[in-house]
């Protein structure tokens, strides 16, 4: 557009005539297109840079190679990560983009991943940048989010996956295993958790010392942005804070909600949930944990508008203390995930400390309280170096915990973490190892390597608001021409699983495994396109 406007300014009459002539030719060609066939617009495939993530970078080339074979004109555009995110979500300015969703524990509930295909999330900045719009899907989405009966809800979630799969607005490329390792001569007893690896909230509670040292040492290349429960916006902040802040409910390794600080969770009516607390719980400073604290915390979170938790709390109207140990949660509308997910994510804060803090997000790190009621007590955090917590002896779960505490060593990169593991400086890796380190670790006698399947996924999203991806047949054909088997075998060295649905196979209860998978098949892709009225010109380019 800019070009034209510039050309027009100050042009001589003859140039104007030329423009007119060109415009007429353009019009004529449009008129002709009813009979003549036109090549499809070229496709820009956006992916990460090689240095950010070599796997997604290479995956784009595997895709492009086959799509070209199908007669499409494809450009691969490796893009700096934040810029790619901005164009994808905020501007929705893309043809096809390869990005990913991480597997956070709370996303094991289907709510979040399903919402990424809801047409009401298709606004700029929303979670459905591809713009998939299917009113049946949206209706089912509402139905499942209000369905309390697990089996009923499972049926609806399955139906939704069937709908999405045949329309295929988003291709789930693969789920990458998280490969982590621990020193079995120092510690054992771990139960790896999907999407979390060994550094899960259960890891430190389950670890059993095999050697002399009873302090578990974890090493990772990432650290919390800050430890303010009303301002941290990173997974790494919460992975640490959840060890010293307790929750009403904790999700088991199989994502079953277990009453934790809650003795019981009951439904009073459609929009009221009653929680009874355990007796005798105290905060780390000795004050009792009461229903007042719990109600205060939830209302405080609503009040302080903490974005990171807003999806958990959007359905909550208010929390009300009924007696010493009972809290009622009043919801704006029925919600299936509130009792399982929301209650398992919000930490319990001591009212006597936080009630005096007006704007919690403005607290500086040195003023941020660290008193919780969790199984561990906060000890210290030296940015870039080290964090520590120690066992809280008065916790109701304390007898089940073998270790004295956890020390987290912060390294600059995975190279440092691996060296630490190899030399016995740390016992567990907090983050996935690099491919080269896996085989090295397998050769070390004191190390056990663990493959943990992930339910987060790498996806390739079509912009369904743009040609030619507005045509379902094109999306289907392009998906059939995407060799995901090869990505898993070559790029992941077999450590992962080909994607088939936005709900991962490892999430067995919610995953729909019987519908079509779009196996790699170039013939089928061509047939799909032909059937939809596409053909190929003499140069092999696809035309319509």
């Amino acid at each position: 557009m800019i070009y034209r406007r510039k050309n027009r300014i100050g042009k001589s009459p003859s140039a104007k005539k030329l423009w007119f002539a060109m415009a007429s030719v353009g019009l004529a060609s449009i008129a002709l297109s009813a009979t003549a066939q036109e090549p499809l617009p070229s496709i820009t495939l956006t992916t990460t840079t090689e240095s950010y993530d070599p796997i997604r970078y290479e995956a784009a080339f595997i895709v492009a190679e086959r799509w070209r074979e199908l007669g499409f004109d494809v450009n691969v555009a490796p893009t700096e990560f934040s810029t790619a995110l901005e164009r994808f979500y905020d501007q929705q300015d893309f043809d096809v983009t390869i990005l990913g969703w991480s597997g956070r524990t709370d996303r094991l509930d289907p709510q979040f991943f399903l919402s990424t295909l809801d047409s009401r999330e298709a606004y700029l900045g929303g979670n459905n940048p591809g713009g998939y719009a299917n009113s049946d899907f949206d209706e089912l989405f509402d139905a499942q989010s209000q369905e309390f009966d697990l089996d009923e809800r499972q049926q609806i979630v399955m139906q939704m996956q069937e709908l999405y799969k045949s329309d295929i607005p988003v291709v789930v490329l693969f789920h990458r295993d998280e490969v982590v390792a621990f020193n079995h001569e120092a510690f054992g007893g771990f139960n790896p958790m999907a999407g979390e690896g060994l550094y899960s909230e259960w890891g430190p509670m389950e670890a059993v010392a095999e050697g002399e040292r009873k302090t578990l040492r974890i090493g990772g290349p990432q650290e919390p942005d800050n430890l303010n429960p009303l301002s941290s916006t990173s997974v790494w902040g919460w992975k640490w804070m959840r060890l010293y802040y307790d929750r009403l409910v904790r999700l088991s390794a199989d994502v079953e909600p277990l009453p934790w600080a809650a003795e019981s969770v009951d439904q009073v009516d459609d929009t009221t949930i009653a929680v009874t607390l355990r007796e005798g719980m105290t905060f780390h400073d000795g004050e009792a944990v009461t229903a007042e604290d719990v109600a205060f915390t939830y209302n405080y979170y609503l009040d302080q508008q903490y974005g990171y938790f807003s999806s958990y709390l959007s359905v909550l109207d208010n929390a009300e203390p009924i007696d010493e140990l009972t809290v009622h949660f009043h919801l704006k509308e029925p919600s299936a995930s509130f009792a399982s997910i929301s209650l398992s994510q919000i930490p319990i804060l001591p009212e006597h400390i936080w009630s005096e803090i007006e704007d919690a997000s403005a607290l500086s790190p040195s003023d941020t309280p660290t008193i919780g009621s969790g199984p561990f007590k906060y000890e210290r955090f030296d940015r870039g170096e080290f964090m520590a917590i120690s066992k809280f002896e008065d916790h109701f779960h304390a007898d089940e915990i073998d270790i004295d505490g956890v020390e987290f060593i912060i390294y600059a990169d995975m190279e440092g973490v691996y060296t630490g593991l190899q030399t016995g400086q740390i016992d567990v890796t907090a983050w996935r190892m690099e491919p080269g380190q896996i085989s090295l670790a397998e050769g070390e006698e004191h190390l056990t390597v663990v493959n943990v399947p992930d339910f987060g996924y790498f996806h390739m999203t079509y912009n369904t608001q743009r040609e030619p991806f507005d045509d379902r047949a094109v999306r289907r054909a392009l998906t059939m021409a995407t060799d995901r088997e090869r990505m898993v075998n070559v790029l992941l060295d077999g450590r992962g699983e080909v994607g088939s649905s936005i709900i991962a196979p490892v999430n067995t209860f919610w995953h729909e495994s019987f519908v079509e998978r779009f196996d790699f098949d170039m013939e089928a892709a061509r047939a799909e396109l032909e059937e939809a009225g596409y053909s190929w010109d003499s140069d092999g380019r696809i035309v319509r």
Partner: protein
Amino acid sequence: MSSRRSYLIRRVIHGVMALFIIATLLFFLFRLGLPDPTAALITEGLNPEERERIRASFGLDRPIWVQYFIYLGNVLQGDFGYSFHYRAPVADIIWERLGNTMILMLPAIVLAYAVGAPLGAWLSWRRGSRADTSGIFVGLMFRSAPMFWTGMIAILVFSIGLGWLPTSGMRTLPYNASGFFDKIFTLDFLHHLILPALIVALYYLGSPLLIMRNTMLEVYGEDFIEMARAKGLPERRILYAHAARNALLPVVTQLAVTIGLAAGGQVVVEVVFSWPGLGREILNSVRTSDFPLAQASFLVMAAFVITLNLLVDVLYTLLDPRVSFK
């Protein structure tokens, strides 16, 4: 004396102007070049209104010119603002990290120059000999070998293989020290310092060595050396007392620039040895679009370079009376 004062005042004014221009460039460079600092929050599931609220809390909802003048006003008062990522005062973060970086870089650079300059002088005296050739070779080799490589080899040999030195970090865990000086005045800290400092020193060794050697060769042709020889002074005295003093100027300049740039740390060494220095922090701040932290880090670096350059020019007059203020 008055010429000296007016010279100094002029230089200080130039320095401040340079800093002002750098601050302005940094401000616009980061804002125009880096993505929105809240872009990465999308993958955490934050919706646009929540991100807008966070942007507003960072002051990013105001027009860029307003932001610019607020920023300038704050910097003039020595206030670098709050880090977007850490939600902590930028100054606290930078001073701590700068301390960690300097405690590694200064000993390393001093070592490199204390060894490199005399060694270069000695090599020039033995020019053409086998010692000269191999000295130049070693100096150049460490200067051109990437530090992540020399660092990794050193870790492999001395830490993993021989087990003499720690592989990473500044101290052994668990520790109790919290103040900066508690942290560095320990044997344990020295133990951690040896390997990274040695790697940095070896890298820097080449500069003073070669500059000294080559300047010395030039000085040898001067009349006063001839004169000293004619007086029958011992060769060693001619070398160190007469020639070396005159050849020192370019080395001092180089030293100042090196120390100035060292404020930014050696990112590679800091990563290989997991040293919590400013270099890693700068890299992170750019990665997370943490404008206040990135701006302040680069500004501190620039201030270092400018100040040290000024200092060297003053030092020149002491080292060499031929240089005067004009």
